[in-house]
């Protein structure tokens, strides 16, 4: 954009090319932002309305009587909600650890090397995602129960389970990212004396960071929000998603409470995403050789 502006003809009157470029950009951005934000807006304001207001017609655009009662109710209705937040964080972080380490390694291998059976393996990674999760849910639950991992205080079983889906995704994303990173960079680094590992950590990894951050976001959000397996595999030690689901999600006639539960669940995920997004942005000014 900048270079384009610099090269634009300094002609008569308004520089149309520059003007329309920027305006178009902002228009497009505004349009898309509106499309995204309107539903979110309603989710959140429904959480701050009383039951009577939530069901009024037409729905007011802003709550007349702003109330925090729904959140209060949500937090006190079930004693397990607070501990479940910690548990969800634990699951999410553990899953990221598993997915990035195992998946990242495999992704690097796919991107850099050629070896026999590669295509078959690549497909099989994808294969896993293609099999509807619902059919595997129960046998997986039984497996973990037999391993004695049912409903543990530290939700290792859930992390292992979520790892399955996320490793595959991470492999694909990281392979795609590593492919985009010029191999010669690593070669040159090794010529200059770095070991293969060193080249990887000093050169490739920083360049791959946006992709890895993308994979991390996916993994976190997925683990944080996942509810089917979580409800199967926990009882006394649920994750936030499981507790929220059992507390408010199934409720008809309690839209204000459902929204409060959903909004509450969304907050930490939004914060994590906000942090990671900065990480992606930082890489803009990153290494360009």
């Amino acid at each position, binding site marked *: *954009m900048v*270079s*384009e502006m610099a090269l634009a003809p300094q002609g008569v009157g308004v520089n149309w090319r520059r003007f329309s470029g920027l305006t178009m*950009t902002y228009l*497009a*951005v505004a349009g*898309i932002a509106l*499309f*995204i*934000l309107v539903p*979110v807006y309603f*989710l959140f304001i*429904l959480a701050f309305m009383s039951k009577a207001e939530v069901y009024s017609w*037409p*729905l007011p*655009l802003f709550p007349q009587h702003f109330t925090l009662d729904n959140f209060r109710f949500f937090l006190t209705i079930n004693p397990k909600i607070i501990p479940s937040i910690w548990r969800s964080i634990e699951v999410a972080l553990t899953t990221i650890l598993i997915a990035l380490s*195992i*998946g990242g*390694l495999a992704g690097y291998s796919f991107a*850099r*090397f050629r070896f026999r059976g590669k*295509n078959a*393996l690549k*497909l099989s990674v*994808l*294969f*896993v*995602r*293609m099999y*509807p*999760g*619902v*059919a*595997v849910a129960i046998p997986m639950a039984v*497996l973990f129960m037999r391993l004695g991992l049912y409903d543990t205080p530290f939700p290792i079983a859930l992390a*292992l389970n979520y790892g399955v889906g996320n*490793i595959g995704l991470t492999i694909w994303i990281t392979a*795609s*990212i590593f*492919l*985009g*990173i010029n*191999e010669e960079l*690593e*070669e040159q680094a*090794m010529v200059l004396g770095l070991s293969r590992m060193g080249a990887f950590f000093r050169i490739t990894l920083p*360049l791959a960071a946006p992709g890895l951050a*993308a994979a991390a*976001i*996916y993994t976190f959000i997925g683990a944080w*929000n996942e*509810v089917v397996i979580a409800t199967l595999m926990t009882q006394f030690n649920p994750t936030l998603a499981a507790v*929220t689901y059992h507390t408010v*999600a199934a409720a008809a006639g309690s839209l204000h409470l459902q929204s409060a539960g*959903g*909004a509450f669940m*969304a907050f930490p995920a*939004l914060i994590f*995403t906000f942090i990671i997004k900065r990480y*992606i942005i930082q890489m803009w000014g990153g290494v360009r050789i």
Partner: protein
Amino acid sequence: MATKLGGLRTKLGSYYPYYLIIPAILYYIAFWAIPAASGVALAFQGPKGFTLRYFQYVIRDPYFYQALGYTFVFLAISVTVEFILALAVALLINTGFKGASIFLFVALIPMVLPEISYGAIWATGYAQHGWLNSLLVHVGLMDPSQPMAWLAYGKIARWMALLIVAEAWRGLPSVMIILLAGLQGISKEYGEAARIFGATGFQTLRKITIPLLKPSIQTALILRAIGAVQIFVIITVIFGHRNLPVLVEEAVYYFRELHQKQLGAAYALIIMGIVVTLSVLYLWLSGSFKGEEGRGE
């Protein structure tokens, strides 16, 4: 020590790549293959042993063909829509305009919301006295005594459109992230060189950016397609079972509501078969099978 990567490869023996993959493989065998196998076995388990009757049932079930049709229509339209939108957003963000980082965050929001909220938002949005109609009334585009019944029975095309809007809303960030990550790996030099040679923005996009972005596009499309084929929760929440039949929803219906586990399992296998075929077809057509290259896929 070898100076060339290729040399290093053969020197260490060709096992090095395998070492990196083994953790993943072991992991999958332990935590996925085994449970999945029992799920697969279920589809063949009749009361008297091995049987194919559940598959026969599915093939004869008229709902199956409906579900197939709807799933594919949905797949085709929604992935296209999402891709175009996501590409637009990714390109916009990549230009680095002021406020781009906030825009990035906004674009990520739909992905962040829990499933329950997602269902609740759109179910209440499309309700006759829901927020969509309320908004339209406030803006003056709708008469409060005649609110549109978006979910009225029998308007399949309308339902499909509603579903696509809701899913596009939700799926946009997933695709966008992959494309954006890919975009950022493309050196600015390419764009500048193109500019110097007088290419317009659009030409740059077509001839330079997109081909360079191909690995990311491919990843995004396939992943999104796999996700789209498996859509079901949102449909059940907004429309209920069987009103807009789609593949996984049928499987779950048999599995959960009618308690025909084998039928559900058979359905699941068929779904997987379809997705595998599609993916292989796509990959083959796009030339990914040309040798087992390290790059250029």
